[in-house]
């Protein structure tokens, strides 16, 4: 997929991946960012005209004025939409990106009309707590994220070698930039008040969840469904938090219900 650097509101210089033909779709990535040659985006672009911006701190995206608060992240998403002159795109967000997409739909509730939230962050249940992503060591992540960690875990390191000091420094720097950004809305508890704003969402909404998600447990899905008027739920088996990569067809089918 092709990418380019764009200016957003004179405050951010970010990389945006674009490709495909069909209905417009704006994709907000999760805390880990996009994967190398992101396989989910590759499938999306077969059906949609895809726009996937990278938040400041991801790859070479950067800011002159840093994002600090949830409102900053929300307005960033809406500013990207405006900068690229998108017209009624389907707004899709995964994990942290789902949290941002939900906030965009709540704040700008007359412009966001179609919304797909894939195991979104943003809520907190005392009785079913989300593990502390920020204290996990790299080897602890695959079992948390994948239904079949052995099969997909290597996607995360893109084949790098942690014993190579140069790779390790690059990884630590990249991880600090990505998770440093993510921490502004996810640390120490990924709740910035979204529960109190869900009522504002007017978009046609699909909530999509992997049944064996161990990062954000599926119990959270019911709270999104009850909080957003008319929201529909698609639970997907044999998939965990990385459901877009583990059960891509099922996720595409759920998104398609928004416009078919």
């Amino acid at each position, binding site marked *: 997929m092709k990418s380019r650097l764009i200016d957003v509101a004179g405050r951010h210089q970010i990389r945006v991946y674009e490709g495909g033909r069909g209905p417009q779709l704006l994709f907000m990535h999760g805390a880990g960012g996009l994967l190398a040659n992101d396989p989910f985006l590759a499938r999306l672009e077969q059906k949609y005209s895809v726009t996937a911006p990278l938040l400041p701190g991801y790859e070479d995206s950067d800011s002159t004025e840093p994002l*600090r608060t949830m409102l900053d992240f929300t307005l960033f998403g809406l500013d990207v939409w405006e900068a690229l002159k998108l017209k009624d795109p389907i707004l899709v967000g995964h994990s942290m990106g789902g949290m941002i997409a939900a906030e965009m739909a709540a704040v700008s509730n007359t412009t966001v009309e179609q919304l797909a939230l894939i195991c979104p962050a943003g809520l907190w249940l005392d009785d079913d707590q989300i593990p502390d992503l*920020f*204290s*996990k*060591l790299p080897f*602890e992540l695959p079992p948390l994220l994948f239904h079949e960690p052995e099969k997909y875990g290597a996607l995360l390191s893109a084949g790098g070698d942690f014993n190579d*000091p140069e790779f390790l*420094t690059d990884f*630590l*720097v990249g*991880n*600090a*930039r*990505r*998770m*440093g*950004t993510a*921490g*502004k809305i996810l*640390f*120490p*508890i990924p709740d910035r008040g979204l529960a109190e704003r869900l009522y504002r969402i007017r978009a046609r909404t699909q909530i999509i969840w992997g049944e064996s998600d161990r990062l954000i447990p599926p119990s959270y899905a019911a709270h999104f469904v009850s909080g957003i008027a008319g929201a529909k739920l698609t639970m997907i088996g044999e998939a965990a938090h990385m459901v877009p990569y583990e059960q891509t067809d099922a996720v595409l089918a759920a998104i398609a219900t928004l416009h078919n």
Partner: protein
Amino acid sequence: MKFTWFNLMPWPHLPDDFREKHRSVWVDIPSSLYDPVKGHELYNIYLDELEYAEQLGYDGIGVNEHHANAYGMMPSPNIMAAALARRTSKAALVVLGNSIALYNPPIRVAEEFAMLDVISGGRLLAGFPVGTSMDTNYVYGDIPALTRERYAEAHELIMRAWREPEPFAFNGRYTKLRYANCWPKPIQSPPPIFIPGGGSLETYDFCLDFDYVYCYLSFGGYKRAKQLMDGYWQRVKDRGKDLSPYRAGFAQTIVVAESDAEAERDYREHIDYFYNRCLHVYPGFADAPGYRTIKTLKANVTSQMTQQALGDVSNMSWDQLVHDGYVIAGSPDTVAKQMKELITGLRVGNIFCLIHVGNMPKDKCMRSSKLFAEEVMPQLRDMWPEYSNDDRFWVHPLGTHANRPAAQAVGAG
């Protein structure tokens, strides 16, 4: 030379199988391991030891701040310093320090430090750490990538609060005060300020911008600190500042006995307890992503708490710990010789003496402290004769010196 007798106040009752049963001494250690009745006895022993250090002639007595940490029982060092302020009369009260980003509003630090300085007659030495990632981010919930911005703002507020003669409005990003008004004011204007750093390049510059003392508080010992301190001094030169050794401080674990053999016999188990049990920190808590700046990460400076930086102390013998300088141990002459290497090698005028170690009982601690004070310190006192009149970086109690003019001393704060 200035010697501060420092007590981390460790919990000495961690079970023998602590490492096997628990992943970390810090952040998520179960508080069921804490016994308040034993804690009562311990606080009083530790305060006795600090008071005794003043009697022995140490220049300062030191306390610090940690949270949810079994090797540090002082979430509030100011409470300890207040107890010491009333029971001592000469030693500097070295509070190293208050993690200023964590006080809400941070003017609380200006107030409490002013109280300590006034109660003690101008003996406060104020430390402003950013705080470790364990304390600041994991235990106190501060957002890692915003910690330094919050710290910088807190520093600005505190220094202004000490400096300004009238109430002022402070419109910060994190703190908004319509009436910022520090009452009381400190006797010293301001107290000397020490900044603990762990190799962040920004911290070198911060110290030099304001003429604060850069302190490397490592448990890794002086031999492993050389590279980091050389980096600091290079920066001092590059910035065109004078090279007074009193611009820098270093913490060192030290145990002294009549002979080298006696030191090993008497202190070995306590050194083992500290290095092998108290430093058992889960690596996932060492550095929350975003806590260190990208500039520092790119310079390949790892956290002092990572296994890589510490070495694998868990399997180290007494011989290795002593040979590699993690611990300076032995007879007074053996200790003095290595202390000279430390002081000249790192070019430091301030030593934070970690003489109470791990689960060391009071009698051994007092004996080691006494031997260091009476037989080692005299050999080291005048190691920087050309800077003997440099009193810019130490306390100025009532009746000893005129206080420095406030505005110039505080700088642009």
